[in-house]
């Protein structure tokens, strides 16, 4: 970061697209994603005066995470379903043939649909890692959990995602 004070407009221009993609991949709805971006930018605007130079990414993604959680609570849409039983099974172990089905890589819509099937914590960790490109440490700081938890969420999220994609390919 330069010495020039950061404005919310700077944040919108440099990070808005990532925030939008994060929100869209988490909720699958462009209007909800746009609402979340606005909410994050408002919080950034309010918070910039108190922002202490440091990990700006960590600060911004913590705001984004909190805004999303608050929004989900407000709408009472937060997934509360227990994890599926299949989470600890490896259905692809004995079925390398399914790999060929996946090799014809599915359209973005299928992947998005599979993402939305993941429990929220897994989905968020996977999106932060594979869509936004945050490191495990940055994700841990944003979500306020230990790095070991991030490791577990990403790993289990990918396994579930792979399972969901296989089912879609088979269906």
């Amino acid at each position, binding site marked *: 970061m330069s010495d020039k004070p950061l404005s*919310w*407009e700077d944040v*919108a*221009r440099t990070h*808005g*697209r990532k*925030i*939008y*993609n994060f929100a*869209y*991949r988490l909720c699958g709805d*462009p209007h909800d994603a*746009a*609402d979340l*971006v*606005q909410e994050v*930018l*408002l919080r950034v*605007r309010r918070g910039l005066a108190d922002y202490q130079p440091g990990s700006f990414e960590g600060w911004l993604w913590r705001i984004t995470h909190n805004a999303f959680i608050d929004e989900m609570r407000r709408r009472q849409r937060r997934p509360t379903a227990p994890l599926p039983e299949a989470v600890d099974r*490896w259905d*692809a*172990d004995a079925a*390398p043939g399914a*790999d060929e089905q*996946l090799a014809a*890589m*599915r359209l*973005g819509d299928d*992947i*998005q649909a*599979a*993402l939305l099937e993941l429990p929220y914590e897994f989905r968020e960790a*996977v*999106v932060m*890692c*594979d*869509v936004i490109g945050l*490191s*495990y440490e940055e994700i841990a700081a944003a979500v306020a959990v230990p790095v070991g938890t991030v*490791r*577990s969420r*990403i*790993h289990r999220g*990918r*396994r579930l*995602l*792979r399972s969901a*994609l296989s089912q879609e390919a088979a269906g």
Partner: protein
Amino acid sequence: MTHLDLLLSVYLDGETTPEESRLVAEHLSQCLRCRRRLETLNQARTAVRSLPMLEMPAHLVPATGSPREARRWHPGRWVAAAAALATIVTATALALPDPEPLDLNDVTRQVGARAALDLGANSFKFVIPGSER
């Protein structure tokens, strides 16, 4: 053989410690099952990474001004605006002078009419020049 499930994703992301990396690499060289699992994890990872980065709607980044709070629906603001409008109307009405009592002479002078007593109807009437037949 102890498998290293949890470390496989971490290994894919290059987030393992040097010691963990050595352990995973060594294990993978001997374990077909973990190599397959690594591949399936990599497919999921690649799938998500293949998603296109969408453009943010342009209206979300105004050139100047503040974040578009006004675009959101805030019922409280409308209530406040209605209350403010009512206050302005009331204050204006109170500030205006009371209307002067009607003076027939002033009226007839201003409109060029004359007042006449209509004995038949037992009342006054205004007569505008030229309108009499």
